[in-house]
């Protein structure tokens, strides 16, 4: 194993632990904080894969914005504590389905991709290269996404305002 792979395994173990705690924590705020662990480790995985622009976007948008949004949502709605309040009665079935999904995916990728080391050189995904690709090949989807974000912004404001507002 190369040093990159050792670093990846350490980060992946931390991210997996965080993900397990997100789906098993008995306190919703703790679940949100464990989500920070998982999202940060995913960002570090992007860095290890030399996708630096996406890594910083991941840290900014996910850790900086989306988790804060979750915490605000938990603050405005009641946050009960305890396994019975947070989980439903079908945990066993859900566990089996999750295990089956993982088994199926693992079998598929064992089947499709070899563990042989390939000598592909990692091309850094800098802001320059990503931006060039966006504005050369994906201008229309980019505009569509910006329109979607605007619509979501207005929709969220309209949905969550009080009815007696003018």
């Amino acid at each position, binding site marked *: 194993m190369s040093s990159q792979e050792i670093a990846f395994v350490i980060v992946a173990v931390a991210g997996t632990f965080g993900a397990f705690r997100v*789906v098993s924590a008995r306190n919703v705020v703790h679940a949100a904080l464990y989500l920070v662990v998982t999202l940060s480790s995913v960002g570090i*995985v992007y860095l290890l894969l030399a996708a630096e622009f996406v890594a910083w976007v991941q840290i900014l948008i996910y850790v900086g914005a989306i988790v804060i949004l979750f915490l605000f*949502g938990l603050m405005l709605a009641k946050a009960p504590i305890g396994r019975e309040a947070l989980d439903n009665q079908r945990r066993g079935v859900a566990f089996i*389905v999750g295990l089956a999904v993982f088994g199926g995916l693992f079998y598929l990728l064992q089947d499709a991709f070899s563990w042989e080391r390939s000598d*592909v050189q990692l*091309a850094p995904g800098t802001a320059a290269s990503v931006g060039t690709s966006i504005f050369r090949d994906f201008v229309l989807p980019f505009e569509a996404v910006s329109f979607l974000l605007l619509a979501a912004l207005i929709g969220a404001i309209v949905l969550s305002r009080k009815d007696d507002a003018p």
Partner: protein
Amino acid sequence: MIRLPLVLTFAAVLFATGVYGVLARRNAVLVLMSIELMLNAVNINLIAFSQHLQQITGQVFALFVIAVAAAEVGIGLAIVILIYRNRETINVDEVNLLKW
């Protein structure tokens, strides 16, 4: 160089965990968090294949997925707060207005 199946295995673990969370949780905010886990697994796959195939397109699509996830969380939490305001609960198995 990180071998591709290693990265894909991590993504598969995250995705399966997200599936379990969506099915097992009854608090709507926790269901949204599990959906975020699944979207992150998809993003890891996009980045990994982008580097494996030496094409930047995968990273562009990862950015699009992040943007759509941000929009989804904003709308989702607005709906959750609206449901809480009207029904005093955000348990997804008690909100059965559309069930017949």
